[in-house]
């Protein structure tokens, strides 16, 4: 990937996120516009990044990592529906189905052919619950902090994940994580400027889930070691942990400092330890 190509992989997502957020700002009289715009910003940025970084996949991709584009479209639509319709039972059910199906689609080539039915189902359910946990952590973080703080902390995690994925030889997945960071940067700036917009509450759950799925794909199909993926998944829920009672009483600047330090530590450990997990066994052995 040339520097120009890498730059486009960031600029296009930023432009898409900005366009979605400005649309939300223009429609601010409508109460759901902010959260819907936040979700649209993340989904639009991710879709733009996919189309710039990788070729357009077929309708039914053979490569499980290529389902991420479809997943971003569907989860983006579901997140917008949730922002508009609120927490109705049907929207919650749709969210659950979409998260479960997304996890299964990303992992189907990794788990299902190599494990028995019982073990495969158990692994799939465990990872689906982790993805659901990421979704919930995004919601908790968006509610529990001043609006700009959640995106800032998640942005730091995405940046760390981008470096770790690049180190594990999956440049394209690393670039996709970088595109999420760029989109979260736009959400952060917009919410710092217009806190009442509420864009973070739509953006954070979707960005957390997409980052989690990227990390699972990197762990499953590239050489991202399990412990590095685990540390980065832990970093993804740090914003939610900082919103828990006992910690959230800290001033925002203190929370930002603690959160960034913890995330930087986890991301540095994940990146630094990544080469130790590589499989450099002789080819074909």
């Amino acid at each position, binding site marked *: 990937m040339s520097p120009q190509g890498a730059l486009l992989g960031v600029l296009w997502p930023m432009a898409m996120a900005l366009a979605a957020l400005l649309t939300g700002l223009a429609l601010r009289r409508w109460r759901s516009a902010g959260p819907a715009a936040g979700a649209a910003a993340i989904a639009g940025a991710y879709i733009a990044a996919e189309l710039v970084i990788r070729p357009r996949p077929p309708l039914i991709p053979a490569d499980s990592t290529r389902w991420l584009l479809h997943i971003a479209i569907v989860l983006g639509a579901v997140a917008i529906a949730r922002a508009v319709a609120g927490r109705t039972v049907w929207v*919650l059910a749709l969210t659950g189905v979409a998260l479960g199906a997304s996890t299964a689609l990303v992992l*189907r080539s990794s788990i299902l052919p190599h494990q028995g039915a019982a073990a495969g189902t158990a692994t799939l359910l465990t990872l*689906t619950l982790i993805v659901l946990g990421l979704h919930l952590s995004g919601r908790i973080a968006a509610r529990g902090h001043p609006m700009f703080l959640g995106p800032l902390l998640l942005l730091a995690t995405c940046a760390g994940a981008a470096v770790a994925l690049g180190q594990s030889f999956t440049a*394209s997945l690393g670039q996709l994580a970088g595109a999420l960071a760029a989109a979260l940067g736009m959400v952060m700036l917009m919410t710092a400027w217009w806190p009442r917009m509420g864009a973070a509450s739509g953006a954070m759950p979707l960005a957390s889930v997409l980052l989690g799925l990227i990390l699972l794909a990197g762990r499953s199909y590239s*050489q991202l070691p399990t412990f590095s993926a685990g540390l980065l998944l832990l970093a993804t829920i740090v914003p939610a942990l900082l919103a828990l009672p006992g910690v959230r009483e800290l001033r925002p600047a203190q929370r930002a400092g603690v959160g960034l330090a913890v995330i930087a530590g986890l991301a540095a450990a994940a990146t630094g330890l990544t080469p130790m997990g590589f499989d450099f066994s002789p080819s074909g052995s």
Partner: protein
Amino acid sequence: MLIRTGVVAAALLAGAFVVSVFAPQAHSRAVPQANAWTVDSVHSSVIFRIKHLDAAWFYGRFDHLSGTINYDEAEPSASTLNLEVKTESVNSGNARRDGHLKSPDFFNAKQFPVSTFVSTSFARTGEGVYDIAGDLTINGVTRPVTTRLERTGRAKAQRGEVIGFEAVFNIRRSDFGITYGPDSLSDEVRMIVSIEAKQE
């Protein structure tokens, strides 16, 4: 609240189950045929050539080629050729680069452990020279290819009779969804396949 939690949990289970049951799996394997010449992995080669930075040719190889040939010299159209390359065996002479080549950016070795060629027609065009068409599958994408196959020799060795073939053909890697690095790596890749097979 309890109802909502139950609905979400049931929906998660349903979504994961439906996808795991109905999602197509993308693994294919060439089926060995009986009474065939068997490709000798140790004495066969698969080499690829790609242009780097539009400046120099770079050569890499796959270290593991297997397969079968049904070679009917009297009636070449009845002949068949099935080959299988382990994508994990890609070897560019640099372990870190091999790691990248095995990743989803290139050969996606964990998802697609083998690339295959299955012949669909075999026509003689000269003495020991054939036009062979077939389906080449890389990264789960199958494309038809046609190439000239030359019989390079035949000998009686201590371990039995052996025969050799070579094919040189070009593919576009983008046809197989491999588009990483379009500014630094050419789309066109030359494949050089040299086969030594022993008679069963």
